[in-house]
């Protein structure tokens, strides 16, 4: 019994809009066009044009308007057609949204969600492939969520909308069409995930692999391959990168003593963790603008084999260290 991530996001929006009349959607093509990636399909029909607002292609303008509406007490969900275009509006995300509660000593909270596809899609070149996780994760005042599965998509988006603080919600275009098994509990309209809690997607004793978004899937594939070679990898789906669930990572590392961090863009998880037998292994996007050609593009983003290799390195290095000790 599976559900696509696209539908999970759509149902989360639908349910939260139906539960709270203060929730409204705003963005380019979210209404009549049903969403550039069809995440908002059907919502204009159901909730009408007051609550599903098609905007001109003016991100600074509509993001500022969204933040202002949140100041006033509404709960806007702002769609960036892709997060690349959030740069046009980033001042509002950081200076107008993330800092207001602090600057006003708690007078002006900003219950807003900024969502849309983030990071590399396929063949869209350098200007349409940037991953903003690392940037937003450095900003106090923001919460940054990174769903992987349909369960994540539903539970985290609902949590984001209910949260009284600004949330950057980083989706992945390639995952939209992927189906994941989903339980009745998750399908219930009361379902919601806590912000700041990671999920152990696969247990293992030999090496911890942390990942978020699409890279969770790659890490699970890597774990499968590693298992065949006798290495039991624990795969942690971070779900939230700000706040980061340090406890879950630490607990895991305490057990495995080895850590591989997997990130599609620039490095996010910069914490030092204790209990390590081997240095942290980092897999991240290559240090290049995203090339268009298919073969180069493949080289620019982490692949399953990169994760496998890093995990092995961590394990062998650690065991050779142990042997020499």
């Amino acid at each position: 019994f599976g559900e696509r991530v696209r539908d999970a996001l759509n149902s989360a929006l639908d349910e939260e809009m139906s539960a709270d009349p203060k929730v409204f959607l705003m963005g380019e093509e979210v209404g009549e066009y049903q969403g550039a990636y069809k995440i908002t399909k059907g919502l204009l029909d159901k909730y009408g044009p007051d609550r599903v607002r098609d905007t001109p292609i003016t991100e600074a303008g509509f993001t500022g308007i969204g933040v202002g509406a949140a100041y006033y007490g509404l709960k806007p969900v702002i769609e960036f057609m892709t997060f690349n275009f959030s740069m046009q509006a980033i001042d509002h995300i950081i200076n107008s949204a993330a800092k207001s509660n602090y600057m006003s000593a708690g007078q002006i909270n900003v219950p807003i969600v900024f969502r849309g596809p983030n990071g590399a899609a396929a063949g869209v070149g350098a200007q349409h492939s940037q991953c903003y996780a690392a940037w937003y994760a450095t900003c106090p005042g923001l919460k940054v969520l990174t769903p992987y599965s349909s369960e994540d998509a539903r539970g985290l988006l609902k949590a984001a909308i209910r949260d009284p603080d600004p949330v950057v919600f980083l989706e992945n275009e390639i995952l939209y069409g992927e189906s994941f098994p989903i339980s009745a509990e998750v399908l219930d309209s009361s379902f919601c995930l806590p912000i700041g809690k990671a999920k152990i997607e696969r247990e293992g004793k030999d090496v911890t692999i942390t990942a978020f978004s699409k890279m969770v899937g790659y890490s699970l594939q890597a774990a499968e391959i590693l298992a065949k070679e006798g290495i039991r990898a624990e795969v942690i789906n971070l779900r939230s990168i700000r706040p980061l669930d340090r406890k879950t990572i630490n607990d895991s590392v305490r057990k495995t003593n080895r850590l591989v961090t997997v990130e599609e863009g620039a490095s996010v998880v910069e914490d030092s963790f204790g209990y390590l037998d081997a240095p942290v292994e980092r897999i991240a996007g290559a240090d290049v603008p995203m090339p268009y050609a298919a073969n180069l593009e493949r080289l620019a983003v982490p692949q399953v084999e990169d994760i496998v290799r890093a995990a092995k390195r961590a394990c062998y290095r650690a065991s050779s260290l142990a042997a020499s000790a």
Partner: protein
Amino acid sequence: DSTTLTFETSLPFTSHNCEPPSRTLETTPKELMTFFRDMALMRRMEIAADSLYKAKLIRGFCHLYDGQEAVAIGMEAAITKKDCIITAYRDHCTFLGRGGTLLQVFAELMGRQAGCSKGKGGSMHFYKKDAGFYGGHGIVGAQIPLGCGLAFGQKYSKDETVTFALYGDGAANQGQLFEALNISALWDLPAILVCENNHYGMGTAEWRAAKSPAYYKRGDYVPGLKVDGMDVFAVKQACKFAKEHALKNGPIILEMDTYRYHGHSMSDPGSTYRTRDEISGVRQERDPIDRIRKLIFAHDLATEKDLKDIEKEVRKEVDEAIAQAKESPMPEPSELFTNIYVKGYGTESFGPDRKEIRTVLP
């Protein structure tokens, strides 16, 4: 005291794409006296802030509003606290106009607990949400879409109120103004864009920053009105007109022709890019407080001494607030970590030395 006085605004309104309001308006002796007192208080407050800054009791940026008082006062006289106001960093008097206290102002400027933002915001970040004042914004132009967003909230909530978003002549060229205005016009948002044209953005004269410094016309397809921003009655009349317009027809631009006496901020002497003659000319001929003083005398509502007494009172109020503010303690160190997120919704945070300070957020 509540007899009606009728007179005309200093100048006719110049309009763009709309019928201007009438120049004729009514007031009462009471209103005249209140305007005088309120503007004198603002003036005194800003001058005191100047001294406190020079005495190093205020740090960082500090942008003073003296000269522009009629805009804050005239606007407040036309609207209610259910209407919203949002402005830039030159926000002390706007805050006061919304009902903020002198103590909150000075304590904030000195970074004390009694400040309106508990010392965490500083000069540029005053707020009074319960009276519809949404700041206090440091990024030039950002408050314009934010203000249109407040107007969106008002319309969405069917509140029949409006938002005044104030910005300077320098800010008037910002692209986000044009983006927000287009959206506001498409959606008929009750947003009033108030360009406080004090003729300089820092050291840049309006004509050096704008090919067309006719800011009331810059909305193109959006109506606009040019107003003598040194005449509190003209401001009041224009704001009343704009509110009605906005509730019925959506956005409108008000250009307030005004002047700042101080430099841009405390580091700017304010005299390298304009002549001293220009400044003293405005002071002599267009000062908003003087204009009221003259009206009061013309209508025989008070004596020279009465007004002097008011000024003395005001001075005392300011001095007392400053004394009180000085008594207010600095924020508790633990406040470093409050209000990053809404209470109960954060998790943890770190100090510069993560090993030393790791706080579970309140």
